[in-house]
């Protein structure tokens, strides 16, 4: 392309010439679509920034080159992430992008230059792509939030409780991934020291599956506790878990296991020298 050629890219020209008007209409359209969930002021700043980054991309696309979408995408990413935190749905976020199409269509619809028409089509699919991109960001951001929360939950849901003088219990619940099992086990060992306990019951009634990694964490904890002078009992191994452990070939060696937490507690108390006796019914 020579420097003195006519500016053949009409859409880019229009976008540049009508910047202020288009942005204002875009903001108005989006506010309307969002039914007052956002004010024009909030949107104006973001839209203007986006618009400024968009114009050179449209030019480049019309020239047939592969435009660099990097800046647009990072602006959109920031915009979408803020919206996720504010509780907007992904469609509401995508609509902000799509409503620019409407505004541009309105500007160009009375013009029947086929070249402009092609440019508008390309522009439209560019915005479609960017709109979908906001969906992707939404999904990713949601996932991050969920991960964050589950990490917090991890900290909260590992209760090591002292159920008797010298006896601790940890009920394990749900899906055990290695991070979680490790946290629980570390907490248990710490609590043994802090409370001066010499027995621990690890109850796995609520656990969905025990694989080699979980088993290994369990085994290591039991050995570590033993080195600290404490004994662990594993309770609540349900039938399906027992069968799976056997088929996997995991050996629990000389670790004491009990069917239920109650059995484990009775076992622990006996070792503490406490006998639990059912009171005989009164004889009349």
């Amino acid at each position, binding site marked *: 392309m020579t420097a003195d050629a006519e500016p053949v890219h009409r859409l880019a020209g229009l976008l540049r010439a009508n910047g202020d008007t288009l942005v204002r209409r875009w903001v108005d359209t989006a506010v309307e679509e969002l039914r007052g969930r956002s004010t024009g002021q909030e949107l104006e700043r973001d839209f203007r920034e986006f618009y400024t980054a968009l114009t050179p991309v449209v030019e480049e696309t019309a020239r047939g080159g592969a435009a660099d979408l990097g800046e647009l995408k990072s602006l959109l990413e920031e915009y979408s992430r803020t919206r996720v935190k504010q509780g907007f749905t992904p469609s509401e976020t995508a609509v902000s992008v799509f409503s620019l199409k409407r505004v541009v269509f309105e500007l160009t619809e009375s013009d029947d230059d086929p070249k402009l028409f092609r440019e508008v089509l390309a522009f439209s699919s560019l915005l479609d792509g960017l709109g979908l991109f906001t969906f992707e960001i939404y999904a990713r951001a949601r996932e991050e939030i969920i991960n964050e929360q589950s990490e917090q939950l991890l900290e909260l849901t590992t209760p090591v409780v002292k159920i008797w003088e010298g006896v601790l219990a940890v009920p394990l619940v749900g899906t055990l991934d290695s991070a979680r099992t490790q946290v629980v086990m570390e907490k248990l060992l710490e609590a043994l020291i802090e409370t001066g306990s010499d027995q621990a019951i690890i109850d796995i009634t609520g656990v969905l599956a025990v694989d080699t*990694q979980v088993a*290994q964490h369990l085994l290591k904890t039991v050995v570590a506790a033993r080195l600290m002078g404490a004994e662990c009992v594993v309770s609540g191994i349900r039938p*399906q878990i027992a069968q*799976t452990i056997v*088929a996997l070939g995991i050996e629990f060696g000389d670790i004491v296991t009990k069917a239920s937490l109650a059995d484990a507690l009775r076992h622990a108390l006996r070792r503490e020298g406490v006998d639990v006796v059912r009171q005989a019914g009164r004889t009349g």
Partner: protein
Amino acid sequence: MTTAGSAGPEELRIAADEDVVRVRQAVRNCAQRVRLSLVDQTKVVTAASELARNTLIHGGGGLARVEEVVDGRRRGVRASFHDEGPGIPDLTLALADGWSSGSGLGLGLSGSRRLVDVFELDTEPGGGTTVTVVKWTR
């Protein structure tokens, strides 16, 4: 044997610890859909957990594919695990109980083979590893 079911195959990336949990959940959901017994559900979920973790740890990450399968009146869960990692140089060793190139128990491969009905392992030194397992309803 054909793939079937209202829900198509589900593909999941395995790149981090939490992906292993996600694969496990996908397999559990699928096992419940085809109505495997509780014992068989737990078995196939545990096998998937082992294989997904091998993909992550030994294969350097990869892809899991989970789907329903039908064979006559039987329904089942098929899960396959693919990576482009180093492959397994000595299969006999890797499939032996208690052998691990790392510090694992060395029961993941051999154990999960015992937990499922079909166990196919395709590997080549330097050419990645694919393991496919199926668990049928009874």
